[in-house]
């Protein structure tokens, strides 16, 4: 079966490093970055099947980043993560991303894996 490539974007480095390792243990190829700029730069050189983005990132929201990433990688799928600090976050996320692609922190790894596989297949 083809390896699924996942890009994780969150400004909490300790989170993405560990999440990437857990996805690797489950057979995914995963890479991580902590800034929007690094995520966009990464897409210029590499191809990913799915991007997992924090909804609140410095300088740019996860949703704004998604729009820029889509321009570089139109086929890529997106999953959002959030600490759900406010109802507004949740509404913004659900309105554009759709509830199934929206995961609340702390992340349930089984749920994340299922979502990634469903989206790619």
């Amino acid at each position, binding site marked *: 079966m083809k390896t699924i490539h996942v890009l994780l974007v969150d*400004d*909490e480095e*300790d*989170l993405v490093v*560990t*999440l990437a*390792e*857990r996805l690797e*243990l489950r057979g995914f190829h995963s890479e991580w970055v902590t800034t929007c700029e690094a995520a966009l730069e990464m897409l210029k050189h590499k191809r990913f099947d799915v991007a997992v983005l924090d909804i*609140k990132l*410095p*300088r740019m929201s996860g949703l704004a980043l998604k729009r820029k990433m889509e321009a570089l990688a139109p086929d890529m799928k997106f999953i959002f993560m959030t*600490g*759900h*600090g*406010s109802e507004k976050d949740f509404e913004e996320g659900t309105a554009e991303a759709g509830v199934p692609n929206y995961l609340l*922190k*702390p*992340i349930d*790894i089984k749920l994340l894996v299922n979502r990634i596989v469903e989206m790619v297949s």
Partner: protein
Amino acid sequence: MDALLNRASVEGLRFFGRMSASISHELKNTLSIMNENAGLLEDLALLAEQGKTLDASRVKDLGSAIKRQIRRTDHIIRNMNRFSHTVDQPLAEVEVAEFLEFILDVSRRLTAAQVVTVTVHAEGQPLMIVTRPFFLHSLVWLLLEFGMEQVGKSGTLILKPRKEASGAWIRLAGFERLTPEAGRNLPGKQDETLLTLLEAQLEMDFEQQALDLFLPKKIHDASLRGSASATS
């Protein structure tokens, strides 16, 4: 004074909500990191059960990472507790530089989201004032929000307290675009209310690209003194 206090209370509640939401977000982040580290420990244990060698140093590192997040969480909760209790301290003596550091610590996530670094440049000597800590926190935050819109390319703002016989000045510097046009809405209605309650005064220094806030050594109007001062 009652009308003024009512107005400040409504705005204060909004400010309290904003800070609480930010703090809860930060707590979610530390929980998420602990969740992933604990999850990875489980993953490694499962692999060990299947015969894969368990790397002891890796387990130790993950334990340390969890401890780090516990310390971070404890720090956030201590700040949250102190912040909450500023509401029930109508008047309190504060050391200005230390209080500014505390304000920055509570709002670190919000300033980081704007990619702005704010630092306190304190004088050597302690600078004690008797003030309304919650309203001072609200006012400094409003000024920081204004500052983050006008910050220069360095993305750095500086808070510099200075002693004066009758009180303390706090200079907020690091602007690049502080013009009469940019500052025309400052102080706004909300700032005015807080300035009155704090018996403070705000000045703009366009030449030095800075804001100067004066706070009296002691609030003279004791009508809001009260006696509540929880310390738990």
